[in-house]
């Protein structure tokens, strides 16, 4: 048997070979199937990765788009900021201009007010040729326009030596009656001699008979007299710009009004006065 087997060993080898071949094929196909399965798994995994990457890409694109939008918005904001700045500058300029107009308007108002006061005062001062009328106008001017509560009018009286000033009219200051002021002495006398207004500060305490303001009345180069203010109305706390303008007007116009009215009362009225012009 052993010999037989040795003699016909070919079929056995063939069988082995067939088995090996089948095993090989089986292994081959198994490995092929396994490889295919692995490959499919990998493809699936890659598909998932591609899908994820696509999704990520889409997201990135959206981000990118929103970044662009933000950039656009930032540019717009910057432009709007510039516009806002320009508008603010223009508004400030307009505001400044407006304030300037208001200031100018206030100044014009004040000037108009002052001019109205001066016009009315001048108009009234020269509207009468009676001495008592002139004094009445001076009363009204001092009390109602300036706000003086007590005042007196001193007129110049030539003396043997130095000239003097005597009170001819007093309003709420009876203490001046009968007094005489020497030329160039005291505030009143000095004001008359120098022809310079004296205006004190009402807030500073002083004696009742101490003048608060002295306004010399001047005609040409001659002092006619002095208007003396002793006190102000309760509500009048200080002298204001218009008061100084009124003092200037009083200094210049009241003298001519007083002298004119005095002369007119001596001439015998309008007809006699006009006759004087016929001689010219």
């Amino acid at each position, binding site marked *: 048997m052993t010999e037989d087997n040795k003699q016909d060993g070919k079929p056995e080898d063939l069988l082995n070979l067939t088995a090996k071949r089948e095993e090989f094929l089986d292994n081959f196909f198994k490995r092929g199937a396994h490889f295919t399965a692995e490959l499919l798994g990998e493809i699936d995994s890659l598909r998932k990765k591609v899908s994820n990457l696509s999704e990520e890409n889409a997201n990135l694109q959206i981000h990118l788009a929103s970044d662009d939008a933000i950039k656009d918005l930032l540019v717009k904001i910057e432009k709007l900021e510039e516009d806002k700045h320009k508008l603010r500058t223009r508004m400030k300029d307009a505001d400044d201009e407006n304030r300037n107009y208001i200031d100018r308007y206030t100044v014009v108002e004040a000037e*108009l*007010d002052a001019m109205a006061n001066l016009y*009315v005062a001048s108009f*009234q001062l020269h509207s009468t040729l009676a001495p008592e009328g002139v004094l009445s106008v001076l009363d009204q001017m001092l009390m*109602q*326009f300036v706000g003086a509560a007590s005042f007196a009018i001193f007129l110049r009286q030539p003396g043997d030596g130095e000239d003097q000033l005597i009170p001819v009219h007093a309003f709420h200051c009876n203490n001046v009656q009968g007094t005489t002021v020497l030329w160039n002495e005291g505030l009143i006398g000095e004001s008359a001699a120098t022809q310079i207004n004296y205006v004190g500060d009402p807030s500073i305490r002083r004696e009742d008979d101490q003048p608060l303001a002295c306004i010399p009345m001047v005609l040409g180069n001659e002092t006619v007299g002095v208007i003396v203010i002793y006190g102000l109305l*309760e*509500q009048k706390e200080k002298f204001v710009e218009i008061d100084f303008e009124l003092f200037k007007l009083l200094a210049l116009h009241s003298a001519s009004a007083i002298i004119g009215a005095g002369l007119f009362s001596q001439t015998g009225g309008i007809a006699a006065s006009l006759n004087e012009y016929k001689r010219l």
Partner: protein
Amino acid sequence: MAEYTCLVVEDSPMMRQLITFALSRIKNLSVVEADDGVDGLKKLAQGRFDIVITDINMPIMDGLKLVKRIRSDAIHKDVPIMIITTEGAEEDRQRALQLGANSYITKPIQAPQVISKVKELLKM
């Protein structure tokens, strides 16, 4: 034609002129002047007024009596009254307001103040 008429009662021609001058700056407002309280009442009886401005210290009839008379007048009892006076004491102000004055301004006056008050009283 003026829309509003104002009666200015003031014995001082200077103040009358100054107040009238100030009021002339208000559009549609005409001014009638009176020398004292009695003259003021006469002028009131002759027409209709939208506002009365009066001084206090006046001969014949003072401003406070005029205020009382106006407040008892059938036609003008509701007319706004502004006092312009040299009397600056608080009791004078209170007395005038109690009698029926609507506004109280002390002299010396400033035109813008008067204009503004008149406009306020006339609701212009």
